[in-house]
């Protein structure tokens, strides 16, 4: 969806403000949100792109005024309710009022202590890769109303394939419960001027990681 989350190239947000000696968390609840998100992911309640899509669907006014962990918490509430793990009444009450929906496993302290490895997104290829490094491609001008990882600023643009990352689960279908639908993934490089016009910084190149369905040969 063409949501406020897709902010690459937007003007007006001001300076970047690094915080010296920034702590891991600015409040205890931030850590709880992060850890809950991890635990629910481990349990198989939803996948990361479902969580991203839930954030993207927050009202834009909320998205850009909430903090990062606030957005996570709001997205988690959405996924819990939409996927039947809890309902609004329970969240308001702060207590379970109904039986749980089964999950495939539960994160324990032991598992955490052994070191949690990030899951792999590699999937079995369904077809050979269509592109190879050096190929010229044009990104499609798509505007799906649902989750996509092709940012607006890089749509309909001419680029060159630099890297082939193998075949990955496809976020656009995963996020809407339509399965892994494995797709080849490429790093595609664009000239800054191709993205931002003739006045762009001539020394700038930008790449995105683009799934094969985002690309046409050029």
């Amino acid at each position, binding site marked *: 969806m063409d949501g406020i989350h897709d902010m690459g190239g937007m003007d007006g*947000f001001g300076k970047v403000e690094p915080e010296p000696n920034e702590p*891991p968390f600015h409040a205890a609840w931030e850590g709880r949100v992060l850890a809950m998100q991890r635990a629910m992911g481990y349990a198989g*309640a939803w996948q990361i792109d479902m969580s991203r899509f839930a954030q993207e669907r927050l009202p834009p006014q909320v998205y850009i005024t909430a903090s990062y962990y606030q957005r996570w918490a709001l997205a988690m509430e959405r996924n819990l309710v939409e996927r039947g793990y809890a309902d609004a009444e329970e969240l308001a009450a702060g207590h379970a009022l109904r039986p749980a929906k089964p999950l495939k496993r*539960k994160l324990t302290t032991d598992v955490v202590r052994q070191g949690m490895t990030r899951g792999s997104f590699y999937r079995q290829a369904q077809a050979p890769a269509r592109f190879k490094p050096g190929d010229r491609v044009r990104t499609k001008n798509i505007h799906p109303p649902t989750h996509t990882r092709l940012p607006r600023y890089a749509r309909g643009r001419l680029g060159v394939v630099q890297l082939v990352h193998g075949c990955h689960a496809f976020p656009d279908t995963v996020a809407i419960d339509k399965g892994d639908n494995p797709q080849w993934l490429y790093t595609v490089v664009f000239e800054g001027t191709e993205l931002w016009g003739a006045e762009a910084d001539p020394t700038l190149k930008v790449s995105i990681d683009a799934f094969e369905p985002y690309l046409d040969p050029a």
Partner: protein
Amino acid sequence: MAEHDHDHDHQHGSELSETQLRVRALETVLTEKGYIDPAALDAIIEAYETKVGPHNGARVVAKAWSDPAFRRDLLADASKAVSALGHESRVGDHLVAVENTPALHNMIVCTLCSCYPWEVLGLPPVWYKSAPYRSRAVKDPRGVLADFGVSLPKDTEIRVWDSTAETRFLVLPMRPPGTDGWSEERLARLVTRDSMIGTGLAKRPEEVA
């Protein structure tokens, strides 16, 4: 209607207690439902507060500076090369290291959310997740660098990597001059988090005394 009242990212006052209550309610519900174990949450938080952080990435960078074979392996397949080091937090399958040179400066961003190489850098800083960084990095990286007090030569190519998939990028910064013969441990102290994101450079020897 004040123009500057809306930056909640840096606001830690009364609104946060509302959030705190809401998050507590959430945790209670999930715990009572049997989905989560609060002790496991404690362990995750502890790991991010004490174990997983930019020192992991700094160790990788220092080794790449010291060991040409490792540098080659890292640039060829960072997931494999870093896993072989036996890190605290294991890296997954999708880490890519990109090397800065006098002619090329790399910078990492995630415009669509805030994807970040957690396994090697720990939690992303607030600025990395902020709208200013996410919006400007792909369009005006030199302006962003200026916000960090960094100025690069006019003809250096700037390459911005937008992390739009599950690939995660680690910048291999340039080794500062005047560090010949330094041990990996000593070199690692020059490697800042920002230098591995590309919003900074490695420290000069005189900066670490």
